[in-house]
């Protein structure tokens, strides 16, 4: 089960960031390579994993991704909360406002809704872990593109924290993959 700790994992600062960033940042909330995809992918794959290592790492990284989801939500929330409707329109957020006012929603940078088609669970541990490795690399790249899109040092700092976490997750999934393949090889011998 999950317990909620009432604090962010890392400070979410938007400094002097442009309101336009909200439209781009939302892709890490509800987009294909964002935190919701990551959390749901890992937390779902864990049920069909064969070893304690893989059940553990998918549970723990999946849980951490929920904490990252909250950081992205906070960044967007802070950017839009005091913006006028005119400012939202000018920043390309008019369509979002029409559907959601300033509420957050699980969409990509173009407003496409999140879909379970972004994730997979084949039930084959190797296939699933390789998908997870790819997912972490794609998330890392997306954070780099978001960092490129902003001049605000505070926002860059928060995004860089999230980017570096993906690199660590990639490392852990790589280790889990090696261990699962060893486990499968051992089963064949005996």
């Amino acid at each position, binding site marked *: 089960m999950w317990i909620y700790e*009432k*604090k*962010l994992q*890392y400070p979410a600062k938007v400094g002097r960031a442009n309101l336009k960033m909200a439209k781009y940042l939302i892709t890490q909330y509800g987009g294909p390579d964002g935190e919701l995809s990551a959390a749901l992918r890992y937390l779902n794959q864990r049920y069909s994993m064969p070893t304690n290592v893989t059940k553990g790492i998918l549970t*723990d990284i999946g849980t951490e991704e929920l904490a990252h989801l909250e950081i992205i939500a*906070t960044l967007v929330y802070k950017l839009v909360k005091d913006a006028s409707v005119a400012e939202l329109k000018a920043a390309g957020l008019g369509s979002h406002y029409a559907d959601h006012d300033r509420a957050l929603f699980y969409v990509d940078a173009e407003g496409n809704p999140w879909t379970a088609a972004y994730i997979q669970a084949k039930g084959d541990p190797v296939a699933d872990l390789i998908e997870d490795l790819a997912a972490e690399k794609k998330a890392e790249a997306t954070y780099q593109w978001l960092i490129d899109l902003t001049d605000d040092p505070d926002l860059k700092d928060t995004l860089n924290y999230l980017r570096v976490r993906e690199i*660590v997750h990639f490392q852990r999934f790589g280790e889990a993959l090696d*261990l699962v393949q060893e486990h499968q090889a051992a089963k064949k011998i005996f």
Partner: protein
Amino acid sequence: MLREQLELLNNIKAVEFTALELNLYLDTHPTDQRAIMDYNASVQEWERLRAIYVEKYGPLLPTDIVEGSSWRWIEGPWPWEIDY
């Protein structure tokens, strides 16, 4: 949020982060005794800092029991409302 409160919260985040990193590492290296010792030490430090924070400023977990006549768990600011 008060400067002092924010500083304490940041210290908790830093220690908690150390614990999380060790947690993930231990998931794929479950027999690393040294890492287990480090993990236990960081959790103890986390609990020490948390106890100070919760007593002064209120609950971080719903199971944190604090003095008061009202249900402090729902009191603001919520994490997305804090000026970091």
